[in-house]
């Protein structure tokens, strides 16, 4: 029996939620085992139990044939379990070596540790300077720190929580080469993701979770992405309807748009033309100017005169409210705190952006009834699951709030709508509904700019595709016939990584 890890009947209940219910599965030595499920399916709770962050209410785990019940992550690490977190658990103000030391039980003295980091990182083709501060590293480099921190402990079971969400396709390939190398050396790898294609091409087995329960353990190569998605969601996925769009006259002209960087990325000479009835997809790895582009278009960051024109009218110096009146609407990435005020009710949240276009404010006074009616309208049209318009925005689940935020703008009948990460952290059903709403809006003649890090989403939605790389926007390419590899190169390739060669 070559089981490295086995779970038997694991269960965990939070107030009001059965997060895991009778979960049983096993991971074998040398395999890359995928844990697949929608947001909220219980993947995070499950791995937190394995890593000792959360204690199961019932069930047992076994590691290398022995009973395993870690009471904290240090016990898990001592037993041979290591984890790379989705949101990096790194300390920005500290050096690479200090960060690695914090993840080890008995780190050697700093000079010795630095040498081992340098050796190991070369061996896996993941170059890193141990003396650099985390704050100065790119997302891909930060992930290398996390991985090296795990590798230095020679783990028997390595847990990876959605590791490719911050990587370009090329960087992801290098990551998989590293993982394969580790698996061949006998490490069991538990790989958490909801990206079906990468699981199909790189994982040996997949355990699928739905609503806290195991649906089954399958060979992902033997199933199509659609079949896997159906198992994940529990129903056939509805295909989005792309028909009925006819790109017509230009509605939005952006020319020579540059911003001062400040804390973020500076936009450099961004130019684009958006036609009515068209969806322009903008892809890029996180932190390459996406947020800055959205703020420049929404009016939060004023730009030089003559850079942004809506149907011939220069809006470069106009603020967000003036742009909304003119018909240029935007939905930012951050739902809580940017697109919506968590403590405000949904009705109050409609006032933030729809006040003028829906006549919710008259002579400086709020028309509460109109606001409530409009919120109700959004809730109905976008199937937002909530008790009603008086519910606080922060009480909604991510997917429902996202439907509300997008719906608020879509019902505002924009001439141009700019959205950033419209389906980030949203379950598959809600994501499909949001995508369909965006397509329908374009079919009605609006121009859309969709900024996203989900390349499949961009290929599905957009007519033309641009890449945003370090504040520069590439020339648009028609989406028809564009491959993921070509997009990867447009996104800036592998950012100085090399393919793994020899094991250390």
């Amino acid at each position, binding site marked *: 029996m070559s089981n490295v890890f086995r779970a038997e009947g694991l269960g965990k209940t939070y107030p009001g939620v059965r997060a895991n219910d009778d979960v049983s599965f096993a991971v074998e030595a040398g395999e890359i085992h995928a844990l697949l499920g929608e947001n909220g399916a219980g993947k995070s709770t499950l791995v937190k139990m394995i890593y000792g962050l959360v204690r199961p209410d019932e069930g047992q785990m076994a590691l290398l044939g022995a009973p395993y019940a870690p009471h*904290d*992550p240090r016990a898990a690490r001592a037993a041979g379990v290591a984890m790379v977190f989705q949101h990096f658990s790194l*300390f920005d103000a500290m050096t690479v070596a200090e960060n690695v030391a914090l993840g080890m039980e008995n780190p050697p003295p700093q000079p010795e540790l630095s040498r081992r980091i340098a050796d190991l990182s070369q061996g896996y083709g993941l170059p890193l300077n141990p003396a650099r501060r985390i704050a100065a590293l790119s997302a891909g480099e930060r992930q290398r720190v996390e991985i090296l921190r795990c590798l230095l402990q020679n783990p028997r079971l390595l847990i990876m929580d959605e590791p490719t969400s911050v990587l370009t396709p090329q960087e992801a390939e290098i990551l998989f080469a590293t993982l394969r190398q580790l698996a061949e050396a006998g490490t069991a790898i538990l790989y958490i993701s909801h990206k079906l294609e990468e699981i199909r091409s790189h994982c040996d087995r997949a355990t699928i979770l739905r609503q806290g329960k195991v649906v089954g353990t399958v060979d992902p190569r033997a199933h199509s992405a659609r079949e896997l998605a159906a198992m994940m969601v529990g129903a056939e996925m509805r295909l989005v309807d792309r028909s009925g769009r006819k790109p017509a006259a230009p509605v939005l002209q952006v020319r020579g748009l540059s911003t001062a960087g400040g804390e973020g990325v500076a936009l450099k000479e961004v130019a684009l033309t958006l036609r009515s009835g068209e969806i322009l997809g903008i892809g890029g790895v996180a932190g390459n100017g996406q947020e800055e582009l959205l703020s420049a278009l929404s009016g939060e960051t004023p730009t030089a005169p003559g850079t942004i024109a809506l149907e011939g009218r220069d809006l470069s110096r106009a603020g967000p409210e003036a742009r909304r009146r003119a018909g240029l609407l935007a939905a930012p990435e951050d739902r809580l705190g940017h697109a919506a005020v968590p403590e405000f009710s949904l009705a109050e949240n409609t006032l933030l952006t729809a006040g003028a276009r829906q006549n919710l404010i008259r002579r400086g006074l709020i028309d509460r009834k109109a606001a409530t009616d409009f919120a109700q309208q959004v809730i109905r049209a976008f199937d937002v699951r909530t008790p009603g318009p008086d519910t606080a925005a922060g009480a909604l689940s991510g997917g429902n709030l996202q439907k509300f935020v997008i719906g608020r703008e879509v019902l505002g009948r924009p001439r141009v709508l700019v959205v950033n990460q419209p389906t980030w952290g949203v379950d598959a059903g809600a994501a499909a509904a949001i995508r369909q709403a965006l397509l329908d809006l374009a079919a009605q003649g609006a121009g859309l700019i969709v900024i996203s890090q989900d390349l499949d989403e961009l290929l599905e939605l957009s007519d033309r595709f641009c890449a945003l790389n370090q504040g520069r926007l590439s020339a648009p390419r028609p989406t028809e016939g564009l491959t993921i590899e070509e997009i990867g190169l447009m996104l800036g390739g592998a950012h100085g990584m090399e393919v793994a060669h020899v094991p250390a």
Partner: protein
Amino acid sequence: MMIDPLSVFILLLGAATPILFAALGELVVERAGVLNLGVEGMMITGALAGFAAAHASGSPALGFIAAAVAGAALSMTFAALTQFLLSNQVATGLALTLFGLGLTAMFGKPYEGMKAPAMMPGPLGLNWMIWLGIALVPVVWWFLSRTRPGLILRAVGENHDAAHGLGYPVRRVRILAIGFGGALAGMGGAYISIATVLQWTEGMTAGAGWIALAIVVFAQWNPWGVLAGAWLFGGVTVLQLRLQAAGVAVPVQLLSMAPYLATIIVLVLISARQKFGRSGGGAAPASLGRPFHALK
């Protein structure tokens, strides 16, 4: 008008000591990610407890030990409120200061007019507390930058979610740091009553706790910077007293204001440098003042 630099320096060391203690303690607290604005309250509590113990026992050393215990005990109220009940750290710290000032005003009445026992003299004519304060600077620096517990403490202050994710006891580390800060603040306060003024007066710390808080920012959370800040403040204090004594034609009120004014000017300069200069983001611990709650 003659001001002898050496005698000014010796006096400066004394004037700087209460702030040095309190600021070093607060530095450790803040590096663990906790903002305790109750330094003034813990100092005044230490000043009274230390004075009472020293007076009763005739031993200044016992006085300082009592002050450390009293300061740490008061800080545990803050720890309980902010770490277990997750109260707002700013409001709780302010309350702690008001609480300490009120409590000592009440219990200090019987001690008014009494005299403190003589301080323990140390090498070079400076008392042992001055030496201890200076010695603590490299010790705190070494602890924070060279030891594993220090690394864990900084990790907790930098990113408490990540520290928790790696299995470090965020709350326990913070409670220990708060207690250490309370003990040092108490000793700093006791220095004022036992070694400087030699008696107990209501409200005698006179804002030293707030200066200590400012000096931690001035020091950019670095122990050596705290030493420089405490000496700078001590120097201005001594200098203005000397100028007053020398009868300089400047209103006394302006001179008394000088140390506080100097602190404000320095803080403004540092903020300006951070905002417009090359140094970019400040050195403040990233989790400073943020409450931590782990879902189990």
